[in-house]
């Protein structure tokens, strides 16, 4: 019998039908994958199953009995917890307090901090998170926060754990650890529902995979028999060609971007790097290796010193000077620093570019429409706030915002995080097109296939230092991981 099932769930938002009569069943001791394009309705369905949102029609059953969730609390009481796609943690509380938020261990009505910290430490160990239970959550880097979020879900001893793209911000070792954990939970009879855009992950770790398209359930496959191509075709409704576009003129141009003797906050040794016109250069490394810090310092968002040149001209300090020189940075954290979620999409796409001291509203609108077509965004109206978009489409808006500035050198930090396979392909080909037009691209990514598929050259960082450079045939998953983890050196 299924531990959790939904029956013809429908949910409408103004302008969109996010879910249209979806029925699914989930069983104990199984790992269910869910895939779908950005905006297909995956997160919405999960939110309904975990009591965050309520459906317009349809019903939810837990162990055969029909239930109605009025709040998250109700869902938790039925043994259902969810790890959200966008982190939902409290920066001003400790790691342990976050993990046990809402169900703190108590003694005589008072929180038993000792027990709480001890239990939190166990959970953190289980998810291979190095953070300490007493640390303030706000001080953690993104990836560790994600692990805390997972630990938090585990703290509930639930029957059903829903994970909405948990691996998007994790690098390889942590992802591996997470899947070991999932396997263990499965052994314990827990039902896991896993959303991801990384298809091979799902094929390797799930029992079955359900596909959503445009708010409708289009089918379900057995993970052992299915292939990536088959899944992609079900998601998108057509066959996908090779995701990574062919390189035309890999890095034959002149030196566009040259950094030498560059030091930034926390760096262990000065960094040298360069990017030629038309080249896509990767920066790989484990989470916490300092890639984001380096990039932010390079564009002037953080302190840094050393020589930075674009087309042989030294770039002044400060973000604006960098932007004037054509140096732009697309942040990894679209929610906090990348986008204005409450503001219209068209504003966001013009915010970095500007639109004259007196705004040219038409140009602003047309620019947004233009990028919507170029990046194939799923948007009802460019005047809607970004917050109404699905995660992947938000990521595209973030990209469009910076591409619109006509940069010379583009630094992308995890550009395809949370983007569906189809859209990934679009972003990749857009990147390649830009490179072919003479742009230089520096791409920070934890997604190794992406690094290998896209980059002409790869720098690898470890512990806030540049530890190697790979090019051409040298680029392989193994060589990168060896450098990044510091083995075999």
């Amino acid at each position, binding site marked *: 019998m299924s531990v959790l099932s939904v029956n013809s769930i429908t949910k409408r938002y103004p302008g969109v039908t996010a879910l249209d009569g979806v029925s699914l069943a989930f069983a104990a001791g199984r790992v269910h994958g869910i895939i779908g394009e950005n905006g297909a309705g995956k997160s919405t369905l999960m939110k309904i199953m975990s009591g965050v949102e309520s459906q317009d029609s349809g019903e939810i059953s837990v162990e055969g009995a029909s239930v109605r969730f009025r709040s998250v609390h109700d869902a938790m009481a039925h043994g259902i917890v969810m790890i959200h796609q966008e982190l939902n943690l409290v920066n001003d509380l400790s790691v342990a307090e976050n993990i046990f938020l809402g169900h703190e261990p108590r003694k005589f009505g008072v929180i038993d901090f000792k027990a709480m910290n001890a239990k939190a430490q166990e959970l953190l160990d289980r998810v291979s998170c190095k953070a300490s239970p007493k640390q303030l959550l706000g001080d953690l880097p993104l990836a560790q926060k994600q692990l805390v979020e997972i630990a938090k879900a585990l703290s509930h001893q639930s029957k059903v754990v829903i994970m909405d793209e948990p691996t998007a911000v994790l690098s390889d070792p942590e992802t591996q650890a997470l899947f070991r954990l999932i396997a263990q939970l499965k052994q314990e009879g827990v039902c896991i529902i896993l959303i991801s855009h990384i298809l091979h992950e799902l094929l390797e770790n799930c029992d079955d995979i359900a596909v959503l398209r445009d708010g409708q359930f289009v089918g379900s496959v057995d993970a052992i028999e299915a292939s990536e191509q088959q899944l992609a075709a079900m998601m998108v409704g057509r066959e996908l060609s090779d995701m990574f576009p062919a390189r035309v003129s890999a890095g034959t141009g002149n030196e566009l971007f040259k950094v030498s003797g560059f030091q930034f906050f926390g760096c262990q040794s000065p960094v040298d790097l360069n990017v030629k016109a038309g080249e896509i250069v990767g920066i790989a490394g484990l989470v916490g290796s300092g890639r984001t810090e380096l990039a932010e310092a390079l564009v002037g968002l953080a302190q840094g010193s050393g020589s930075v040149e674009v087309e042989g001209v030294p770039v002044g300090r400060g973000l*604006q000077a960098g932007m004037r020189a054509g140096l732009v*940075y697309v942040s990894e954290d679209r929610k906090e620093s990348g*986008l204005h979620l*409450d503001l219209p999409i068209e504003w966001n796409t013009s*915010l970095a570019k500007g*639109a004259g001291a007196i705004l040219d509203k038409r140009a602003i609108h047309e620019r947004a429409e233009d990028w919507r077509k170029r990046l194939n965004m799923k948007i009802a109206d460019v005047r809607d706030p970004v917050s109404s978009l699905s995660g992947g489409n938000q990521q595209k808006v973030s990209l469009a*915002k910076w591409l619109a500035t006509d940069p010379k050198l583009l630094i992308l930090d995890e550009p395809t995080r949370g983007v569906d396979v189809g859209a990934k392909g679009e972003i990749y080909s857009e990147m390649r097109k830009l490179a072919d037009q003479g742009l230089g691209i520096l791409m920070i990514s934890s997604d190794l296939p992406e690094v290998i598929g896209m980059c002409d050259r790869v720098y690898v960082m470890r512990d806030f230092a540049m530890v190697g450079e790979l090019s051409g045939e040298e680029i392989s998953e193994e060589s990168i991981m060896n450098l990044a983890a510091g083995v075999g050196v």
Partner: protein
Amino acid sequence: MKAQRFFQDWGVLIAFILVFLYAAITQGGSFLQWPVIVQLFTQNADKGIVALGMTFVIIAAGIDLSVGSLLALSGVLMMLNFNKFIASGTPENVAVIYACLIAMVSGLVIGLFNGAVIVWGKIAPFVATLVGLLAFRSLGQAFAEGGTINATKTEGLQVIANTGFEHSSIVNRNDIPITFSWPIWIWIALALVFGFLLNRTQFGRHVIAVGSNEKAARYSGIPVQKIKFLTYGLVGLCVGIASIIQVSKLASVASGSTGLFWELDAIAAVVIGGTSLNGGRGRIWGTFVGVLLLGLISTLLVTADVSVYWQGVVKGGIILVAALLQRGK
């Protein structure tokens, strides 16, 4: 859903219209007259101008508690200098112009000072402007030795607030044409300019972006600090202009009481007008109507002869209803 959105967008205007209709029906003839309506604008122009500036500050997720005290201070500076000019034999009209410049410049400069303390001194706006609330009035009192300063010549000064456009067909009950005085036009003009500034210029859009998500604004290359700094300058300038109107209207300035509680009134008008205190969302016309609504309530309390003890309850009640009308989800 649709209805809710409608109320959210237009709530303050609907509230204003409802209160106005109520007044017109219950007060009958004595209310629906040109003088009453014109007075509503005249009496609230100064506060309204301050509220316009406050709207920018609040949209940028700031707050300015010092406006009332600043009003007193720049009024005192204006008046002291005016009297000095007159004493030294400067022609009256020249003295008036100088005095107005002094009021505007002192408002602007002190506003920018607030901004500098907040932006570069890294002090929370609430605290920094609370310091201003205490210090500016105190300074004004020190300059004025605690008292009221009266203009030694009043005609020239009073031209600003007491003359304006008249039309022979718009008269009061004694058939004297009503003056649409300059403050009304200044207020309307500033509202239009500020509306344009907020909605049609890069500066305005940057103010919204800073208020909506400061970090993202910084990452977008918006000069966040400069924008914040300027919003405080803007409200300071507005206060300077308002102090000119006050001084011109009253031909005097009371260092101890001029502008008392104005910060609350101005913030209330902005918030009732639909601007979010969390920043990032706001509108100029809402503030304009918000000021009018508060003014209308005061007028109504007078004309309906509500007992002074109960006025607070009635005023609070109407504000509550206005807020209920336009609440979000």
